[in-house]
């Protein structure tokens, strides 16, 4: 997330609430390390990156929390927890934790929180993280802010400032929890940048023995059917994206977006109205209730740049907006403004890119000519 939406680092005026004395013993920032079938979810590393920043501001330790089975997969992940910035890692291994299931993971996580008392607990807003976060927060009777797009620390009272778009309009809000601990938040994949991996950073490991009993766990995993990777758009990890919005006017025009995307090897994205109109599949929606993306280049065609769209794509390195309206909000945060009609500019861009790429290919094929 760019700094544009992060709250300024000055104390903000809050409703009057005082943190009860006994909560002041809660210390440290925790990140739940999510994995499924031996694959860590990258959102956990992204959260360690942000968690490092928060922990440094507070002057406390950053911990990763790893729950899992007794096979090798947990041990393999511990090293990464250190490499992505944690000071320590809490590890709880038990055969009951082999596959993710709500009940045993909630039991394990709440026991760890009650034992070691972190002030902040962050989880990915994934199907696993949201499933677990809701149950853990409810069990602990603490506050949870879902799907945050910015996290910061209030320098005044050291509370966690969680920002997210507010309902409708083009506004953001900052949410605080001045009543309970830990302060919990979930963050969607790709919202926070991936931190650098520093191998061999020192890491303390705290093994915690959980008393769990399979016969007390009601839900059983009967099967796991892995997705065929290829058949779904991989928008969150695409380097180039061309997205279309309501400004395209009709479904035929959305084909212009697809055509430019094909020429430059980009994935196709869409705003919510474009998805609602049936011009693009649900998986292609970018924004607060769609995917968060961090491409090298994002071209927004006929998209106004409403805050719910913006929070999903402003992590892009370079943003180009195509819009008839020079005052469109997209130009408040784009790098390039192409003011004009999408139906004319998209084909023109396709040609310009095609010519340029063809020339570059020729140069590549005959490197000798260039040096002459």
């Amino acid at each position, binding site marked *: 997330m760019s700094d544009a939406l992060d709250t300024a680092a000055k104390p903000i005026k809050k409703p009057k609430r005082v943190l009860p004395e006994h909560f002041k013993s809660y210390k440290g920032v925790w990140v739940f390390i999510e994995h499924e*079938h031996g*694959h860590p979810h990258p959102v956990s590393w992204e959260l360690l990156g942000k968690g490092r920043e928060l922990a440094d501001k507070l002057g406390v330790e950053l911990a990763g929390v790893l729950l899992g089975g007794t096979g090798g997969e947990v041990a393999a992940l511990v090293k990464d927890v250190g490499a992505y910035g944690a000071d320590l890692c809490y590890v709880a291994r038990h055969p009951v934790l082999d596959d993710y299931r709500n009940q045993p993971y909630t039991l394990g996580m709440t026991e760890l929180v009650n034992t070691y008392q972190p002030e902040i607990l962050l989880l990915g807003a994934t199907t696993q993280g949201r499933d677990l976060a809701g149950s853990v927060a409810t069990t602990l009777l603490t506050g949870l802010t879902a799907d945050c797009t910015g996290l910061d620390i209030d320098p005044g009272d050291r509370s966690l400032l969680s920002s997210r778009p507010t309902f409708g309009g083009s506004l953001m809000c900052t949410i605080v929890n001045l009543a309970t601990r830990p302060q919990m938040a979930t963050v969607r994949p790709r919202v926070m940048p991936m931190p650098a991996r520093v191998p061999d950073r020192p890491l303390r490991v705290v093994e915690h023995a959980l008393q769990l009993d399979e016969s007390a766990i009601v839900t059983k995993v009967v099967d796991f059917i892995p997705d065929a990777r290829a058949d779904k758009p991989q928008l969150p990890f695409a380097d180039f994206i061309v997205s279309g919005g309501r400004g395209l006017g009709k479904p035929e025009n959305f084909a212009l977006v697809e055509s430019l995307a094909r020429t430059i090897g980009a994935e196709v994205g869409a705003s919510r109205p474009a998805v609602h109109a049936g011009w693009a599949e649900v998986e292609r929606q970018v924004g607060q209730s769609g995917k968060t993306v961090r491409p090298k280049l994002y071209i927004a065609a006929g998209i106004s740049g409403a805050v719910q769209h913006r929070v999903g794509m402003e992590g892009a390195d370079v943003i180009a907006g195509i819009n008839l309206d020079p005052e469109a909000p997209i130009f408040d945060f784009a790098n390039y403004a192409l003011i004009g009609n999408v139906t004319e500019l998209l084909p023109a861009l396709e040609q*310009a890119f095609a010519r340029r*790429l063809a020339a570059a290919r020729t140069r590549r094929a005959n490197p000798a000519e260039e040096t002459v």
Partner: protein
Amino acid sequence: MHIAVCIKQVPDSAQIRVHPVTNTIMRQGVPTIINPYDLFALEEALRIKDRTAAKVTVLTMGPPQADDALRKCLAFGADEAVLITDKVFSGADTLATSYVLAAALKTLDAREPVDLVFTGKQTIDGDTAQVGPGIATRLGYQLLTYVSKIRELDADSRRILVERRAEGGVQVLESALPAVVTMLEGTNEIRFADMPGMFRAARQEVERWNRDAIGVDLAKVGLKGSPTVVAQVFGPKPKAVKAFRVAGDTPAAMAEAFVDRLFADYPHLEEAMLEHLEQVDRQGAKE
């Protein structure tokens, strides 16, 4: 079998305003709909009703106007509807919302045992996907989130077998009733409400339950029972550097100028694009 479906009435558009003093949303004058995600939950419940003659009760916590949304559910085929409404419930975050809904479900269960609770995946206004897990945790029911398919359901053996969308695959889970199922979108399509259904819905009584009817602790509901509070509302800030306005008399000229400028400013982009395209070609050749 008795199935409860939690639905929420939500504003239909993005035109909602925020109250400048209380920082809560102002709902006046905005058209409302049933949260679209909840229709998948309702339809799934109605399909079970079609197969097994189950009874379907819909519930919502909301203002008196939410009566409309419940009547629509009755028109689709739900048997009974309960509106949980009380001014002390307003301003609730997910913790306080799940507390009230769980209390209402307990009240319903005492009257006629509840086997299965459905919620939508998330709401389009709150957008948290946390209320379903909250309800299950409070009631001690099994939680099955992001369910794309109910493969088997048997009231006698209290068994349920579902497919759940997990990260990187589908989990097949076997569990026991009572359970809370949060239904994934796109898994079914809501039926049409027929004329007899609409007439029945217009006449039928929608029960109203307030704080006394569901016996709640006032410290745990509404704004007071919500640990998370909005501290500030702000507009997104423009970037320090304004967007570079690409000049050009014709679309073609503007496009050429843009591509030149882009690759001059970010030379690595051209390399990356070429390499990516070559990779795509190679993959295409393999298939």
